[in-house]
């Protein structure tokens, strides 16, 4: 029996510990591992460092739930609606407790993880020169090109303790197919010391091997495989379900106050135990509405010889 296949509860219990650094939300608005985030909250993890480009509301949610000590990100909020109120409360007022923030841009966070994936301590760039991002930033330093002498910004490598990555399908070893925008997922997977894969479905190894060019994550990087249909809701998973825009809008409205957020958290996270209950709460009608309706299959590629 394959030992990598775990329930979400088991995977978070075994691989996510207090104080760890976690990279998540690496495909930007798509494939955000919300289900894993909810379980982290339910298991009461503390002092986490969250790493990622924009995370939509995932980071805001974890911050509000008190799991987070530090955020290393380019953007924290609600992409469609604007502010993340928990992020604001934490940074502006120390509620539920103060957090540290290391500001990045999407490119610098991509480069920091790319550096780690490549096994070098830093990478040079021209972005963010002239901005205030590098000011007092421990992971950014101005340097000169050894060939041209031009000014460059060195961005230090970031090696997260764990990556949590949502995919469309993988085999029991965690060899994973992803399609649609991949953002910084490949580098995040290679940069991290361990990896929890959350998959819409576990498929036969033959399906994965039929198209090795679609494999973004090879199984040897993967510590745990969690089969969790709808694990990314309310974010979209191409070919499985669409983005639940209303859910983000409601979150925005309902989390403006601390009390509102607590209510939201109890309803959607703390008051339920599994993704199954979450989907029941979401309701069959909504699920049917979000489900992919049209088929638009990729043209085949022949790997035969």
């Amino acid at each position, binding site marked *: 029996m394959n030992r990598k296949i775990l329930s979400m509860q088991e995977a978070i219990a075994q691989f996510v510990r207090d104080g760890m650094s976690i990279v998540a939300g690496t495909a930007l608005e798509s494939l955000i591992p919300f289900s894993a985030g909810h379980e982290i909250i339910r298991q009461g993890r503390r002092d986490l460092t969250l790493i990622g480009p924009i995370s939509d509301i995932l980071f805001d949610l974890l911050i509000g739930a008190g799991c987070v000590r530090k955020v290393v990100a380019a953007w924290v909020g609600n992409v469609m609606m604007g502010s993340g109120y928990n992020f604001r409360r934490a940074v502006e007022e120390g509620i539920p407790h103060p957090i540290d923030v290391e*500001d990045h841009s999407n490119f610098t966070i991509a480069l920091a993880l790319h550096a780690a994936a490549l096994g070098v301590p830093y990478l040079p760039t021209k972005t963010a020169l002239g901005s205030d991002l590098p000011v007092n930033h421990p992971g950014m330093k101005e340097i000169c090109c050894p060939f041209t002498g031009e000014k460059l910004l060195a961005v230090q490598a970031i090696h997260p303790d764990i990556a949590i990555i949502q995919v469309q399908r993988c085999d029991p070893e965690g060899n994973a197919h992803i399609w649609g*925008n991949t953002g910084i997922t490949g580098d995040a997977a290679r940069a991290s010391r361990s990896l929890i894969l959350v998959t819409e479905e576990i498929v036969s190894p033959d399906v994965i091997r039929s198209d090795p060019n679609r494999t973004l994550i090879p199984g040897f990087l993967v510590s745990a495989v969690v089969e969790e249909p709808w694990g990314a809701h309310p974010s979209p998973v191409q070919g499985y379900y669409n983005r639940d825009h209303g859910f983000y809008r409601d979150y925005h409205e309902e989390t403006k106050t601390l009390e509102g957020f607590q209510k939201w958290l109890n309803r959607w996270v703390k008051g339920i135990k599994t993704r199954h209950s979450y989907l029941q709460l979401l309701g069959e009608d909504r699920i049917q509405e979000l489900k992919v309706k049209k088929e638009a299959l990729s043209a085949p590629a022949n790997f035969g010889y």
Partner: protein
Amino acid sequence: MDIERGIENGKLKPLNLPVAIFHFQVQYMNYTLPELMVAAAAREIRDGEIIFVGTRLPLLAFALAKKTHAPRAIGFFESGIIRDTPAQEVLYTMGDSPNILGAIQCGSTLDLMGMMQQGWVDAGFIGGAEIDKYGNLNTSYISGKPPPNHPNPGFIRLPGSGGACDIAALARRLLVIMPHEKRRFKDRVDYITSPGYGTGRNWRETVGLPWGGPGAVITTQGILRFDPVTKEMYLASNHPGIPVEEILANTGWDLKVASDLKETPPPTREELNFIRAYDPAGFWTRG
């Protein structure tokens, strides 16, 4: 306080602006302010250009430009998508499924950012919460730099850069869309998230930026451009019905006005038809 949201928002959560300015009556048609801004933004895209498309109104502006005067424009989306056709449905985020179906390439953020750093991107769109007279943008911290010790109630934390800093640093031309209010148009921004022309003139060269800088700022009241030498922002056109005095009063420095000041052309019937068909619920454009 919703200062960071501003105009790039929609029906479901009305803008923090006087309702009156949302509904114009001009001679031949009705249009909303966001519709005017989308049309103005679309016109900044030239045919055949590669555009780094930011979130919110730029998503519509890119689609509109493609359908009107710039059919050969190409869109880069920071999540890794390249399109040469607009998505078939209105987008709420660039990661929405319709933005992936029919793309010419779906890949990585790094590849697209790398091409922008090479100079491939002709223009990029971003929004801003604060801007200053040299076009520097702040979407990070209002009323002060990040404090060394928390908690500090003396500032507002905005979402941050996302890809904005990168687009501002690396696109050949930066296009900005934002609400025109005195508290947002400041002599000097509190924090530079996205570099404009710094302190003016050849500042970008000095700090190591290879090219670029803001080309246009499309606001709720007019379109502003930059002096080619001093790099100071000036008013190039005022929107129909907005007196110049009102714009000056809503700007936190002594804003210069173009000697050939024009009125922003209103959206055409064709533009409006497209916008309304594309965003039928009016999430982005009905205010």
